[in-house]
């Protein structure tokens, strides 16, 4: 992970585009194996994602949670913390926001703020447990946050089904009050303020790392912890804080999804957004602004895939295959780059 953030952006961009190209090429082979035309599949994907303004809004709707989860991942990566628990933080944040939304009656703006605040607290609290074990006992946060995901999804299911189930409904809570809705941006889509929250968050995060003392401290802890310790930075405290903020943003993603799109909490309401966000952040090499574009890419794949089963013989799962191939290609690129670093052949200014 260490070399991840230390390379030039041009090289990064070239590397990632190459990774995507390889993934699409290998995806094409698989599409050919099921006797479908890759060109038709990709054109359909593009049409499904960007065909008209409604489709674009649909893409942006899918992009929003991936983007916010991606920012959560970026914050962790920058501080040397691999938060794989964003999915769980998203679920708890989503549930917490819904609970404030349906259980309390508050004036409009205040209601949203209160629901969001609890979502953020829930996400941070959920990651606080792995974070504590990490800084106190050195427990690997990758493992502990993954495990926490299972607990989070099942815990929210339990809340939904046994404690707050809407009478007569599916596995979902009662709907939230309208005062807790995030305002929609257009009349023809559920696309809402959440997208702007995500974009603002990306820019604020980038500025934080670029220009603030605290952002500098986080970066040093992430890239050279012993150096940071020597320089007087409290490495444990920074590490704990980084995970907490990362979890808080993960919780926020859940809140945005609940208040902006579903207006209730449903069991399994946001499958895979946390993981997609993590991949988007990795593909963007930990850059918050870059994550805007990679999140858009994954959002387009998700939105475009809806049309795929209608217009082609390919199944929607083909985008999962393409995503998996991208992960492989990116990992291979990282390994190559790290090897280059070790032998000192490649040196990149940043």
């Amino acid at each position, binding site marked *: 992970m*260490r*070399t991840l*953030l*230390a390379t030039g952006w041009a090289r990064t961009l070239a590397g990632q585009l190459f990774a995507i190209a390889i993934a699409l090429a290998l995806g094409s082979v698989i599409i050919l194996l099921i006797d479908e035309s890759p060109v038709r599949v990709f054109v359909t994907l593009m049409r499904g994602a960007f065909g008209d303004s409604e489709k674009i809004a649909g893409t942006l709707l899918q992009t929003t949670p991936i983007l916010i989860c991606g920012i959560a991942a970026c914050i962790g990566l920058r501080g040397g913390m691999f938060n794989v628990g964003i999915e769980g933080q998203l679920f708890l944040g989503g549930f917490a926001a819904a609970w404030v939304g349906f259980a309390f009656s508050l004036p409009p703006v205040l209601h949203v703020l209160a629901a969001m605040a609890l979502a953020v607290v829930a996400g941070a609290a959920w990651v606080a447990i792995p974070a504590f074990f990490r800084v106190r006992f050195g427990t690997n946060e990758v493992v502990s946050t993954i495990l926490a995901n299972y607990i989070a999804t099942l815990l929210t299911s339990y809340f939904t089904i046994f404690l707050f189930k809407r009478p007569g409904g599916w596995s979902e809570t009662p709907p939230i009050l309208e005062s807790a809705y995030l305002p929609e941006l257009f009349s023809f889509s559920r696309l809402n303020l959440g997208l702007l929250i995500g974009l603002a968050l990306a820019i604020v995060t980038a500025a934080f790392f670029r*220009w*603030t*003392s*605290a952002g*500098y*401290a986080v*970066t*040093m802890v992430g*890239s*050279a912890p*012993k*150096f*940071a*310790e*020597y*320089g*007087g*930075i*409290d490495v444990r405290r920074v590490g704990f804080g980084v995970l907490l903020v990362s979890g808080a943003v993960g919780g926020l993603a859940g809140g945005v999804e609940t208040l902006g799109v579903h207006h209730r909490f449903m069991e399994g309401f946001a499958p895979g957004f946390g993981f997609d966000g993590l991949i988007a952040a990795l593909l963007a090499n930990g850059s918050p602004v870059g994550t805007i574009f990679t999140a858009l890419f994954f959002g387009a794949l998700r939105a475009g895939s809806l049309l795929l089963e209608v217009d082609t013989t390919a199944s929607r799962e083909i985008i999962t295959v393409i995503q998996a191939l991208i992960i492989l290609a990116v990992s291979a690129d990282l390994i190559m780059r790290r090897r280059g670093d070790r032998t*000192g052949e490649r*040196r*990149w*200014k*940043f």
Partner: protein
Amino acid sequence: MDLAVDLSGITKRFGAFTANSGIDLAVRRGEIHAIIGENGAGKTTLMNILFGLLQPDEGTIAIGGKTMIVDSPAVAIGQGLGMVHQHFKLVPSLTVADNIFLGMEIRRNGLIDRAAQEERTRSLSEKFRLRVDPRERVAGLSVGMEQRIEILKVLARNARTIILDEPTAVLTPQESRDLFRTLRSFVDDGMTVIFISHHLEEVMAVSDTVTVLRDGRVVATKPKSALSKRELVRLMVGRDVSFDRRPRGQTNGKVALEVEDLWVRDDRQLAALKSVSLSVRAGEIVGIAGVAGNGQTELAEVLSGLRPASHGRARLHGQDILDLPPAAIRAGGLAHVPGDRMVRGVDRTASLSANMLIGRHRRAPFARAGVIDWSAVHGEMWTLIRRFDIRARGPEDPARSLSGGNIQKVVLAREFTAGGDVLLIDQPTRGVDIGAQEGIHDEIMRQRAEGRAILLISTQLDELKALADRILIMFDGRIMGAVDGAAMDEDAIGLMMAGVDPADMTEA
């Protein structure tokens, strides 16, 4: 003359840069031939050409009297050459024997015959008196042991001429001495050793003939007996470099750093410092001499707040510092040049500016209200680049694009300008070219003249002799004794470094 290796007129260019220029090198059979020169003088390039890893643009290679084209290491190995690289190429998860026979496994019925490999390893190990356990896994072995395996690897391929590239860079002094003894026994058996180094002492200690390279050219080839250390330095650097004691004024400053009865544990929870007491005055350089690994690192770490003390006191300007975090000790006026500069001293991936900023990233002039003023940081870094003669293109260069000596200058520049008036300097010139060492020594003396209190830890006695006002000798976590820097008795220091109590010396 019976030559094991005869290179003549070797030239190698990389683009516009000429790494080797018309090099002649004749190595006699049965000698230890040292090739010495500063970093970048062309030593490694030359050896890579001899070993077939690089092709020369001009010149010829003769091995054992036959002129030939060496276009791959296989050719070189076939001619009885063996190379022990500076960075070992072992597989940690395999055993010693498996590593030695990697690529030339002894087979039976198409399967690897482990027993035969182990037996061969054992016999090689006995024959050359290089003790190893053939069945041990390489992971977890000491660096000295890994090198021993590399040498056995070469011997298993029937090498008669062994090339070692900077073999002592990673060894402890004891391991180095063992290595030299081994090399001597090789030449006694009629083998030939080519030894690449930039360390004067070991070249003087072990070699028969010395070839000095500078800027890609041979500046001299002489028998060691015809060379003095001073002359060797002049040949390497191209000018006289003084290791004489630096002239200095008298000082009688206030005590700035005081340590009393300090006990510290190392990472294995063993006592690394045992009742250490010392004090450093303003305008004074107190040297800590000793073989590496006798508690010096732990002393530096505990004083800078990176390691807890188990018992004792340490005061910086009268303030107790043992329970303070590193940031508070820095704020109290301690600057620290760490011994392991690549891990502690810099973030290799970060820019020079980012490296300079550490510890100062929260305060004016570089930060206001939590926001960093990068143009001020870059401006300061430019100033330091000029003042400390750091060879870099600019403040935004990543630290890893610099040579070791220049990285050390970045660390010194940062610490000497951080505002601390007590300087804790651990191994200031380790791995630094001789020419650059002089500049670092100048800077340390300047700090002394400005009234800073300096605790200087070094394994090089010459350095302490040149700089220190008083020298304390450490052995096994204890201060064995102190000597005056101006009138130091090297024999006494040597004995104390080996653990002999000075009280016993007078009796003897």
